[in-house]
């Protein structure tokens, strides 16, 4: 599989959301290229117009209940490139060496993204998709003084969640462990074998525009001490 060098399309406007329930600010969201947005009275329906003049709607109360219908693989063959100059999507490295999304390029996990283009090694192509990235601050796992061995991360997703997962952990010495895990399954384990007092975790999911995912639980398996 040859490397891919190029760029991906970005939306003109990036969305951010303040969620009063969780007092959180999340974003950016760029997957629908929205240029105007409004809500409907007496409902939780949000309407938007996109750059291609499509009118779309979503129900924000769908966030409350994550029951997803079963779908067959909507991504198709992810080894087949798409035209990144006309179609939106993301390109991610099977080996974690390069991620292209919304006009930006992240050369490796935990690297600060820069404006594209860039080179992705062993690329996988996800058309009509966007990249969801969740990166924690430093976790000492309830004990900030003792050294620990980060052994594995257990992830639990809602049934019928759709996406392709990359997961990485970083120690205090900037050592990064993790891997591409492939399509999301209900239960997934990421083996890291990383030592240190505190760690950062980064989860990257290639997410389809029309098919959501929901992470129910993340648990960090670890041992105490410098060695087994």
């Amino acid at each position, binding site marked *: 599989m040859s490397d891919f060098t190029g760029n991906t399309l970005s939306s003109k406007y990036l969305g951010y959301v303040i969620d009063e329930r969780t007092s959180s*600010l999340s974003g950016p969201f760029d997957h629908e290229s929205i240029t105007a947005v409004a809500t409907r*009275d007496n409902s939780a329906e949000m309407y938007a117009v996109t750059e291609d003049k499509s009118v779309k709607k979503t129900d924000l109360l769908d966030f*409350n209940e994550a029951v997803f219908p079963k779908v067959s693989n909507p991504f198709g063959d992810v080894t087949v490139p798409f035209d990144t100059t006309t179609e939106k999507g993301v390109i991610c490295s099977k080996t974690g060496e390069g991620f292209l999304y919304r006009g930006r390029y992240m050369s490796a996990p935990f690297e600060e993204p820069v404006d594209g283009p860039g080179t992705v090694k062993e690329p996988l192509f996800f058309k009509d998709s966007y990249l969801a990235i969740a990166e924690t601050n430093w976790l000492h796992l309830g004990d900030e003084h003792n050294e620990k061995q980060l052994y594995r991360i257990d992830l639990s997703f809602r049934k019928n969640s759709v996406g392709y997962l990359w997961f990485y952990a970083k120690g205090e010495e900037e050592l990064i462990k993790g891997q591409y895990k492939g399509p999301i399954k209900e239960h997934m384990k990421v083996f890291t074998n990383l030592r240190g007092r505190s760690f950062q975790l980064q989860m990257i999911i290639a997410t389809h525009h029309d098919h959501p995912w929901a992470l129910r639980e993340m*648990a960090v398996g670890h041992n105490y001490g410098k060695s087994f």
Partner: protein
Amino acid sequence: MRFFRIPAFTGIETHRDDMDRGSLRTVEGCVPHGPGGLRSGPVWSKIGDVDQFSTGSENHASAADDGQGNSLMFVSRESEVHDLLVMSTENTALVSLGAGYGVINSSIYNQADATLTPIGNRLYALGDGTAEAVTVGKGPPEGGHLVYPDQTLYSQEWSRFPNCQFYVSGPKKTIFAAGNPDDPLTVYISEPAGLTQPVRDSPYSTSETNYHEGVLSEVRILGSNASKITALSTRGDKVVVHTDKGCHILYAPTSDQASTGYRTEQVAATNTSAAVNSQTVAGDGGTQPFWLGHDGQIYKDEAAVRGAEDFKSYADPQQASWKAKGKWEKEHPANLANSFATYDSQSGMYWVFVKSSIISQNTQPSAHGPTNLTAVQDSGVVNPPASGPTDFDAEQQAVVVPPANGPTNFNAVQPPSSGLAWNAPLQDGWTHTIQLQEDYAGLPTIENLTAVSNMSDTSGLRSSTPFTISGTDAALFSLSTTNAFPSLLTSVSPLDYETKSSYSIIVTAHATDGSTIWYNINLVVLDVAEVPVTGPSNFTAVQSVINPPAQGPVNLAFSIPGPPYYGPRFLVTEPNTVPPVNGPTNFGTAQYAIPNPFIGMDSREMAAGQGTLYVLGEFGKLFGRGAGFEGQLGQGNNASTGTFDPVTNYGTPESANFVEIDEHVGHVSASSWNCVWLKNSTGNLGEMYGTGSASFGGMPGSGTNTPVRIMTDQTMTSCAAGYGSGMHVTDNGKLYVYGLGHRMWWTTPNYLTDDGYPGFDTQWSEPVKMCRMSNESTKICTRWFIDNDGYLFSYGYNYDGQLGRDPTEQTNWPHYPHDWVPRKTPIYDVVDVIADAACTYFIKSDGSLWMVGQMNSAHNPGTPGHIPTLIDTDVTYAASRSGIACYGTCASYGGLVYRKSDATIWGLGKLPGLGHANEATAPEQIDTDVLPGYLTLGGWGLAYAKFKQGTTLSIYQAGDPNDPWKWGLFGEQSYSGSGDSVPHITTPVETGTVTG
């Protein structure tokens, strides 16, 4: 092995980086979901398309319905829908939308994005500050509503707001509005009338009372460092005024005057940053509990509490985004003005959209804004508006074109279709302006005349011919006569913008008692881009000029400009008894041609000033004749020479009455009363000399009547003379300009006596090889030069596209668009350029002659003036009047003569005296056997030289001996012919010879 379960994920948090409870540094494309979970972003489903939107600078509105009573409205500009409104009907589901329809298909709102803000009664104000906002919506459900302005539904809340951009329904059922670019720190408030105080008039009302006394109050935000109000929102019973320097709070209007003298009390708020625009705090759905501040942070509405002016309080408690500060806003662009947001109360989500920094920076222009810092002037008032906007009467609302068709759920606020039905009292002389798009097919109904409101009722009108029309254009309209009511005022022919763009009609209503009321209708026809019936001619050729060769090196040989053809010089090795007799051919056996000894230097052998003719004789002897009263003949005096008039009643034709000015000249260029030339007396190219008028200082040689060398340290290869101004190019490609208008008209003092301004040596550093300028001082003049690659550069005035550039892209469009900085035109491969009055011609290396500017537009209707049009081929030389001497009409007509390779000369345009009362719209042949380079055109005459006979150049001329200023043709100034009327010399006659 132990397991540490993340208890709960957070949003973006950077305030501390060692949170151990699932604090997230990055949360992109997903949101925290439940305990310990995350979820991807919302999934959208498509319900329709926006199929009508504005592609230009105008704001347009369109809408679509679902058939269930739900409607969506889209406001668009520059091919982007920038605002969206959902008008819903309860107990229905909005599943899909039907076809779209236009609500506002044409508007004058073209300065910025206009947004919808609610004003109640299911109506929304839409405006960008260009004019008074229009009102759109469905209106109240009772039916029969009038939305313009509705003073019957609930009159207390209605007022007319001048050029406001955003509105909010404030306390006590009042409407607050702001965003008037002419008064950017003023909030306008509708007067809170009541049952006990039904008359809405008070001493603190606005000055905008010409038609609606006392209906509107204004509150100026006092003591603020802000430059403009950016949004309005409500909080409790107060209105929050967002400015670019923080918030202010307006209290609810009361029946008494506030301590400031305004209608409401105002106080400053302590929050750090106010909303960047109305869309992020109070969009179409009303006020939201958050806003995006100018500092890029999201604020809670509770931040707007009373505080001190300019007090720097800790911002975190006021911000909803405080934990993410320092990271999330890093991607924001510097200009947040195009941001937009919405709030959903069910989910408690505030979605805000900010322009991506990857996309080019937002260039949304503000309608007005501070530019320069100024000191406080006079009595401490810094340039207050001289006068506020006034006369917000009915006709100003009439700028919105009503929807042509489509469902009627949405109405743009329009002038009442039944012209006089509005409730404002009608007065004699009232003016009602209507704008309609031009209509090619039908006869538009202009007004549906039904009643006059201040007559008691329709019975107040007489039954027979209740209305009559008169005025300038009354004959072009008709009133239906079959029915007394209504009377339809209809155009008798389709409105066509190109035929007539405005009409004036007077409508008179006749009452039964014989009294009348009349009012004016001003009908403005809006232009619609029309499909040309036939395509522009020569389109392929035009394209070949505009587009450089796509093939690169393949066509390179053709794109390299060839050297200008300077014409042969005949070196005669035999005695003059064996001269060449027929130009460059038929040489004697001992004769041969050598290249022009001045090859490499610009070459023009003949030039015309205002009444003065200059011509080069053999081997570069410069002769002149005609007017010399400014010393332009270089004889050391101000005498004129020669009567030079072949018409018998003007005296005896002269011959050989030229005076010698200089020698070894290779190029001569003349303006009205000056002459400059390039000579080679030392073996080096291009010494520049000049002589002539002192009236226009700054030009080389000005103020002398003997030739003087100009700028002795330079070697010139090209020079041009204009009206009291000049240009030249040095042998190292530097361009110099000086004299009147070198920084163009009116931008510096008129008379520049000492300004040898080497301006473009610093402004233009690329090599230049030739310069030209029009001999014109008014706002049509142009300056030109050709660079070493053959590209044409221009600057000056461009009203008619005479710069070869789109005038709509120029400074000051549409009034005398100009550009003082030389810029590259799309025109390339040029070997000569001839600057005329409002027109320009250029010759390419293939011998093709082209034109841009006024004549181009006039002769090729439908072709923009700046798009070149081919005039002829095989052209070796051309000259124009160059707008010389104004000619009484400021030379508003171009005139061109040119020589083809077969030695014929041709004319086009306004040719003085050549029998063209107006202008020749197609090239007409003038003569044959004309020498290359020996062709010039002045304001009053044409002169040229035919092939030599022996050593004699025979000069021919044609023109107007009755010239307005009595210069003759190129003869002596004469005042004796006043009142004479002799025929123009339409057949060129030989009038002089030169033997060098």
